[in-house]
């Protein structure tokens, strides 16, 4: 009798009912799995590689934020503390003074401070820097390349498709882990950057 009941075919209602239950079960397990995987996976953010950067100016103009979240960072360990700083002065500067007409930066975002004869320190005012890269080009051409452009992750809103990455002609933008979001050329000591 029991054997007979076991062999009894499912009717259509039970089949659909059971099918729904199994589907819901698989769906819940799948969603749970995806959420678990996401919670364990590393988050990634956008960053530009200074080695590839060609200082084209698009970091300043393409970012969805105003001013751009790309800023000049100073790797002090690499700096020569030059009096005639190629990142600070225009080539045609007649005197090495802080007069606006001598400065290369269009927003005067670099502060020149006397350290001791003949050394000067250069600090970046983050609020004024628009990420245009003029100073980076000057420092690279005449100095040690201690001024470098980076996406500032205190300011970046981490768009899915970064507008600057899309426009970058050098393909210098890449996704990097959020727990190590900066790429510096030459040095990597976090304490020596501003």
């Amino acid at each position, binding site marked *: 009798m029991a054997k007979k009941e076991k062999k009894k075919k499912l009717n259509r209602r039970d089949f659909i009912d059971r099918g729904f239950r199994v589907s819901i079960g698989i769906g819940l397990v799948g969603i749970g799995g995806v959420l678990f995987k996401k919670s364990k996976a590393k988050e990634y953010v956008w960053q530009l590689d200074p080695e590839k950067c060609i200082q084209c100016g698009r970091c300043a103009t393409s970012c969805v934020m105003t001013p751009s979240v790309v800023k000049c960072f100073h790797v002090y360990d690499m700096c*020569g503390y030059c009096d*005639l700083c190629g990142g600070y*002065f225009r080539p045609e500067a007649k005197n090495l003074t802080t007069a606006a007409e001598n400065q290369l930066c269009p927003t005067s975002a670099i502060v020149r401070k006397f350290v001791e004869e*003949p050394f000067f320190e250069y600090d970046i005012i983050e609020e004024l820097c628009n990420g245009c*890269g003029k100073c980076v080009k000057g420092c690279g051409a005449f100095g040690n390349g201690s001024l470098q452009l980076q996406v500032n992750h205190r300011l970046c809103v981490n768009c899915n498709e970064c507008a600057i990455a899309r426009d970058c002609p050098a393909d210098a933008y890449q996704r990097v882990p959020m727990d190590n979001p900066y790429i510096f050329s030459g040095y990597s000591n976090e304490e020596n950057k501003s």
Partner: protein
Amino acid sequence: MKQKLIIGFSLVLLLLVVFLMWKDFYRSKSKVQNNPFEYNIDNLKNIDPDLITYKEVSQLKPDIEDLIAIAIDKKDHIYLTGKNKVIIYKDNSLVSSFNIDSTAYSINISSNEDVYLGILDHIVIYDKNGKQKTKWKAINENSVITSIASTEESVFVADAGNKIVYQYDLNGKIINEIGKKDTLKGIPGFIIPSPYFDLLIGIHGKLWVVNPGRHAFENYDFEGNLISTWERTSMQLEGFSGCCNPSNIAMLSDGSFVTSEKGLERIKVHSPSGDFKSVVAGPDIFEEGTKGLDLAVDTKDRIYVLDPIKKAVRIFEKK
């Protein structure tokens, strides 16, 4: 028939729209967008041809893994060194070569044709046939010997690590330190941010040392007294820019200085008092980022430029 035409036309139109959308999304990255913040340094790299008074006449291509330093003796033998080797040329022809057991970063030929090699922190002396004569005691762990010059009585060694010039007697004993900061004597001290620190004995027998952090040339007597100095700080041709220039120097028979720079790779001639005279070679003939363009001058005032990237010695003559 009319319906088929409409369907066909619509299909073509649809494909065209899809193509344009694809092109817009994936191929529209404009490569010629104007840069409102353009910083054009080409005008510094482009040199007025009238200012270039030398021409490249030939090249030496030595068989050496790393080509680092050059010196020319009084008979115009050209000595080249670098990794594990010294090579000697005369009139563009190979004369001889010998192996050394490490990398030499500087070379000098004494009046009796001994070969002085700067091996990081010490000096090794060979005769011209490659037999090692002596090896002097290492200076200290900070030492980076970047240049050597010698007279009949002394050997002068530029140490970029210790930021000083050591004067040795011919037995390898340090007898004086030259260029240490001394405000009472008016000696400013050497600023050496990178290992480019050159010196030479001038035509009048005095020691000339580059102070690259100050873009200066300092002239000392053999007691270490500063006799004279000149400096030229400028991104233009008349001076030197960046953290440490000129990186290397040589002297012509009239006392003019031949200088090489890094950053803006260029070879120039300055008068004995520092005024810009002419250009030997501009940045256009060097690979961008070339550093360590060591210099030498022969008795005919031909200028020899060691190009470490192209692994060649480039020879320039007056036009």
